[in-house]
């Protein structure tokens, strides 16, 4: 039987990976846009968000490696884990689609990260509190950018409205997983490390509804979901993301870059 401390460390390790993987996978997706956006300012905006997300992932994965205590650093965790050991909610790995689809995904995750990190700045885990305090400033800006675009696209032309409404219908079901609470989440709440997800969800819904209203978009109905990225069960997309991201580390084992 495992000791309590060991179980606690494992739960924290898993939880920190969830946060780090969400930022990493989303940052990787945004990186695909750079140089291909609808306008120069959007290349700069998306690159900027990608950069912040990769920065968050680095802090979180480094911390996860320390919690694990097996000497894995941020790169070993990012580049040498298989997809079943990635714990991001699968919304992050969904394809970019058109610019509107990317921005819908972004709004949904930005608002989640904002509500979560705002409540984590006084975490009992000092390291996570510090990461949250840094990240919350970034994600507040991300949400300003993404929601600004969602409003423009939703309330722009009939075509843009139709496109983002379709993307919203497509991606909405994946949001359920962000708030699905399991033993790991409950352990974090019990130890005062993370906020209760139901509380995060209530604030998220309020924020998202306000944005959708301004964007003249309709909130899709909630549906049960069959995905559990937070437990390592992913869509077909993550395999490709990792194949691309991990290629050099896998092709030249042990090389330093």
């Amino acid at each position, binding site marked *: 039987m495992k000791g309590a401390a060991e179980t606690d460390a494992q739960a924290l390790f898993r939880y920190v990976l969830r946060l780090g993987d969400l930022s990493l996978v989303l940052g990787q997706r945004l990186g695909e846009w750079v140089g291909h956006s*609808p306008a120069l300012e*959007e290349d700069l905006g998306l690159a900027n968000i990608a950069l912040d997300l990769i920065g968050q992932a680095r802090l979180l994965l480094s911390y996860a490696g320390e919690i694990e205590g097996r000497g894995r650093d941020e790169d070993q965790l990012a580049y040498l884990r298989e997809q079943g050991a990635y714990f991001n909610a699968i919304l992050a790995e969904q394809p970019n689609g058109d610019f509107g689809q990317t921005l819908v995904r972004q709004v949904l995750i930005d608002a989640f990260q904002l509500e979560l990190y705002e409540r984590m700045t006084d975490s009992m885990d000092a390291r996570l509190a510090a990461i949250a305090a840094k990240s919350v400033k970034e994600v507040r800006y991300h949400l300003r950018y993404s929601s600004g675009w969602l409003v423009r696209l939703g309330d722009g032309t009939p075509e843009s409205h139709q496109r983002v409404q379709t993307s919203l219908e497509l991606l909405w079901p994946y949001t359920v997983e962000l708030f699905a609470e399991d033993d790991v989440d409950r352990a974090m709440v019990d130890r005062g490390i993370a906020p209760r997800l139901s509380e995060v969800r209530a604030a998220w819904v309020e924020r998202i509804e306000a944005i959708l209203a301004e964007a003249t978009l309709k909130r899709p109905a909630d549906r049960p979901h069959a995905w559990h990225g937070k437990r390592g069960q992913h869509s077909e997309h993550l395999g490709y993301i990792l194949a691309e991201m991990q290629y050099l580390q896998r092709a030249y084992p042990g090389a330093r870059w």
Partner: protein
Amino acid sequence: MYTQGLDGQPAEAAVVDESALEQRFLARVDAEEKIEPKDWMPARYRNTLIRQISQHAHSEIVGMLPEGNWITRAPTLKRKAILIAKVQDEGGHGAYLYSAAETLGVSRDQLIEQLLSGKAKYSSIFNYPTPTWADVGAIGWLVDGAAIMNQIPLCRCSYGPYARAMVRVCREESFHQRQGYDLMLQLARGTPDQKRMAQEALNRWWWPALMMFGPSDANSTHTGDSQRWKIKRFSNDELRQKFVDFTVPQAKFLDLTVPDPQLHWDESKQQYSFGPIDWSEFDQVLKGNGPCNTERLAARRNAHAAGAWVREAASAYAAKRRPSAAGVAA
């Protein structure tokens, strides 16, 4: 919001005596005074600057592609962050340079249209591919290194807005050059595979980097006027020589071989002497027959076309919010 509404040339005051104005202009240039957007300037000076600044802006934008190609595959998170920041800086340089060009009476939309139609040129160097990670390092080290040689003198260019934009661009470019060199150093001191990768990238980029300085002085059509106007302060060949002298010792430090069997130190001139440049390759790439000309332009056109609905939506939204401005933004 994407249209700056600066179509056409600014109205110039009724000209009484062009040659007197031109003499005064030249006297100001000779006195190292900056020419500012509202000042009188000869039409040829204006056109030369529009051509040069917009080509420079286009080069930054197209230049995002070969390196952007490696963002998703960068081998460490730190390198990925550095690369994203670098490509973002290039986009930023494009943005200030388009703004500098706009002070001369063209709009960014017009300039982008010229790029997409194939009418405007951008630096041919970006028509070469980046097949390996080492190419990202080679671009930073050699291409940004060559760009700095070209651009440092532009910080003293006679046209104020261009000179000021270049001060910031150069600071960032020299940072990129150091990052590129650091990437190469890591490879050159790495495994045999990594060292080979670095050498092959040097082989690919060395000659194209030398061609970045443009045709040799004997065949350069724009040098004379540009030097008279203090847009250009050194000739193509002078800058190329400076680059070679600066870069060869860096290659030696990396323990990589510059792919030029004729390269040697010329004791009498106190500079490196290098082999002849294959200008037929340069001409071919310039004519559109380089390895990636079609791809690069297609990528820009696709991004522009795929983003049309987004730009239209932004304009429609802006028009709804500011009824008084309706019609201007469209």
